[in-house]
């Protein structure tokens, strides 16, 4: 891919709740380059979750421009946006979001279903990625047979299975104890070393401190580093 993975310029997002406009993002400019390792820090209500939804193509900005994988999100239809999420982005959620009653292997293979990859190849790729995250011995286990740390590693394997350029992780260690959280973070860092850009949304400053770059959000704006007019970070 040419150019940065994600470029946000003056992005705003306003929710309409019962006719009242609630601004969640009030003008955010941000670039996620290939191979970045970025932490987004902020208290609850700072707009960091909204930002992550936008960066991941789950939502469209109200104003400003947002380019993901070289494509302007505002001009894309819902199916095109879905395809963009499938190809460019990998999501890791705080609560894992694995399908119950579905094996680790089939959970990991899920994004490939929507890419139209055949069953045999899906299963092979999923198995390889589970091996990569250290769960080669657990491929036929269901989520309720796995520990929290293992579930999150399955979720990471799923995020990686399509070969995305950016991994968006929303409080990936939020539901884990410190030891398993540390293991998950190391795993993410080893992936970063392999060339995947990582955006880590967290309110934990220790976790954020491990990133190469850190931005702090408050009230829908980036407050640190301080915004420079027309500047792009």
């Amino acid at each position, binding site marked *: 891919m040419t150019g940065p993975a994600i470029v946000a310029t003056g992005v705003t997002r306003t929710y309409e709740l019962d006719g009242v406009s609630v601004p969640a993002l009030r003008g955010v400019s941000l670039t996620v380059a290939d191979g970045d390792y970025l932490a987004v820090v902020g208290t609850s209500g700072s707009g960091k979750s909204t930002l992550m*939804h936008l960066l*991941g193509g*789950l*939502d469209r900005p109200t104003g400003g421009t947002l380019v993901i994988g070289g494509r302007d999100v505002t001009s894309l239809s*819902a*199916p095109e946006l*879905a*395809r963009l*999420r*499938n*190809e460019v982005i990998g*999501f890791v*959620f705080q609560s894992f*979001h694995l*399908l119950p*009653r*579905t094996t680790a292997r089939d959970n990991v293979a*899920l*994004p490939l*279903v*929507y*890419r*139209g990859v055949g*069953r045999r190849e899906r299963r092979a790729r999923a198995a390889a990625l589970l091996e990569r995250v250290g769960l080669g011995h657990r491929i036929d286990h269901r989520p309720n047979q796995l520990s929290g740390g293992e579930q999150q590693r399955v979720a990471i394997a*799923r995020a990686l299975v*399509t070969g995305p350029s950016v991994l968006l992780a929303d409080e990936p260690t939020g539901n884990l104890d410190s030891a398993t959280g540390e293991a998950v973070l190391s795993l993410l860092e080893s992936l970063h070393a392999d060339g995947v850009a990582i955006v880590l949304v967290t309110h934990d400053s220790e976790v954020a401190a491990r990133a190469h770059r850190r931005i702090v959000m408050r009230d829908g704006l980036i407050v640190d580093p301080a915004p420079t007019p027309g500047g792009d970070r």
Partner: protein
Amino acid sequence: MRLAEAWRVALDALRANRLRSILTMLGVVIGVAAVVALVAIGTGTKQQIEQQVEGLGSNLLIVVPGRLEAGSVPSVSTLSLDDVDAVSRVVGDRSRVAVTVASGETVRAGSRTTFSSLQGVLETTPTVFVRTLDRGSYLTRADVGTGRRVAVLGAGVATQLFGDRDPIGRQITIGGVRFRVIGTFERLGQSLGVDRDNEVHVPVTAAQRLLGTDRIDGLAIRAPDRERIDELGADIVATLGERHPDTDFSAVTQEQILGVLGDILGVLTGVLAAIAGISLLVGGVGVSNIMLVSVRERTREIGLRKAVGARPRDIGLQFLLEAVLLTTLGGVLGMALGIGAALLVDRLTPVPAAITWWSLALAFGVSATVGIVFGVVPAQRAGRLDPVVALRTE
């Protein structure tokens, strides 16, 4: 997403909620089973009646007093044997004219009795209608002319009275009067709901004496050729009209009887199928309802699928196929149940049933359509869910 994959996902979802899926299906199962069984019974009855009317013989013309139309009161017959002679002259052949005077009578042989349908007839009956003898001989013209007390028994009556013994030459009493058995009919079974094996044929003259009447109930004519059957009917009605100025007469052909019966049965079958169809519709509403519940329950799953790249139509397809799978599985089970019920009715009751391929195809098509129609709204709702909102749902 590939279609095969979507089917698999839908099947998995149904398996995950096995009891709920089965209960939801039950509505469709019952609806389809009812449609198949009721249409089979309607069709079977219609076929049976057609066979029986045709089995009476071809080119039959039946003459009865009164007008043959819906709502008319059956008239008391004023016909007598003299009228039969007049009609025979119109037809030009006495052997083509049959008469009946009928009455239910107790028939006794030794210590055994049975209640049977006494038919006073001419010797022409086996020629006009299709009746074949098992043993002995039929009435002769001389028997009719002299009012001889001889009888030909239906197979059922013969068995009732004589068991395995040969009844020919034995004495019976009909309404207390002695008759001699000269023949028995072959077994015929039911016809238009009447047990034809329960008949006892005696000369019409003897029957009139027994019943104390000089009337006959009706006439049947086997027309010499098919083309002139309506003309002949009109001639006969005109002749009888001259002889009985106060009475109306009607002549009907088998085609007319079949047409009227067919219309009535067609309407009945249609009404039954429509009622069954309503239950299928109710089943469809149940499917719609459960699918909406299912979409709500799996909002998080929908959000996740969308996050990893499912398009709205992928999600919609998944839920639509789930609904279609529910109803088509229900449809197949319903067809099996309906066929089973129809066969059981056919076997265990006098009501006949005939499974028709079109009713099976229709039931299956309708159940699949019900799935699509009632699955569309839940599927669209699932497909349009905002992934951000869906992921947040607990």
